[in-house]
């Protein structure tokens, strides 16, 4: 397999994982602290609330897409490239998506971190 195929696989992982992450983060913020729910209502109630949340289930679908993309990409390229590259690019995509869709305050420190991460990815791609 060519390096281009490996990076196409990484792109597929990043897009699907970011969509899944944003959907699931939104779902978890709807539900509240799972630790507190478990303490007051029990583990079964946590499971019931999580699996009955439609946003969570849609996020789960996109995470499954990301998982199979990862499996295929790992058969084309080394884990030491695919793992950090897909995770760090997902981090940058998540910072942008979280600001837009989750209204998180992505301050200067988080953007500086994004630059560091992008530099790290460039080194990994060499």
């Amino acid at each position, binding site marked *: 397999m060519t390096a281009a195929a490996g990076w196409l696989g990484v792109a597929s992982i990043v897009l699907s994982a970011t969509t899944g992450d944003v959907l699931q983060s939104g779902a978890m913020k709807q539900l509240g602290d799972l630790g507190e729910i478990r303490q007051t209502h029990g583990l079964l109630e946590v499971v019931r609330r999580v699996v009955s949340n439609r946003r969570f289930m849609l996020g789960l679908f996109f995470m499954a897409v990301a998982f199979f993309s990862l499996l295929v990409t790992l058969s*084309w390229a080394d884990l030491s490239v695919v793992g950090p590259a897909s995770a760090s690019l997902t*981090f940058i995509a*998540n910072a942008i998506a979280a600001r837009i869709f989750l209204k998180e305050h992505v301050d200067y420190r988080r953007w500086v*971190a994004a630059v*560091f991460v992008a530099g*790290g990815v460039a080194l990994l791609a060499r």
Partner: protein
Amino acid sequence: MSFRKYLVLAAVAIFGACGDVCLARGMRDFGAVTRNNWHQLLSVLLNPWIGGGICLLIGFFCSYMTALSWADLTYVLPATAISYVLMAFLARSFLHENIPTSHWLGIGLITVGVGLVAMGPSLTAPPEAKSARNGA
């Protein structure tokens, strides 16, 4: 932040790194996915490395969801970035992958960058983003 929450973040990093290493080991047994064998991809689920990797990633998923219930997405991801370093060590030790100096530098940059984020607040989303609690 409480000790329990730090433990949850540590679990995210450890389960994630170990799970990915197991998946990579299992996919080596399958070989490269091509147009000739893609339809056999589901059979990799029977591979013990893949099975073990999936179990570890279920642990990762549960701890990740728990962390997302009390922290920003842009906090949880970088705060657990130490998993990249752990993953590189595991890939070198168990998969005998060659990791050149530039890759180590890249992993170092990523870790420093995301470490910056971990020093900030864990939750910044406005109250209205959490107003629909228990309304699933």
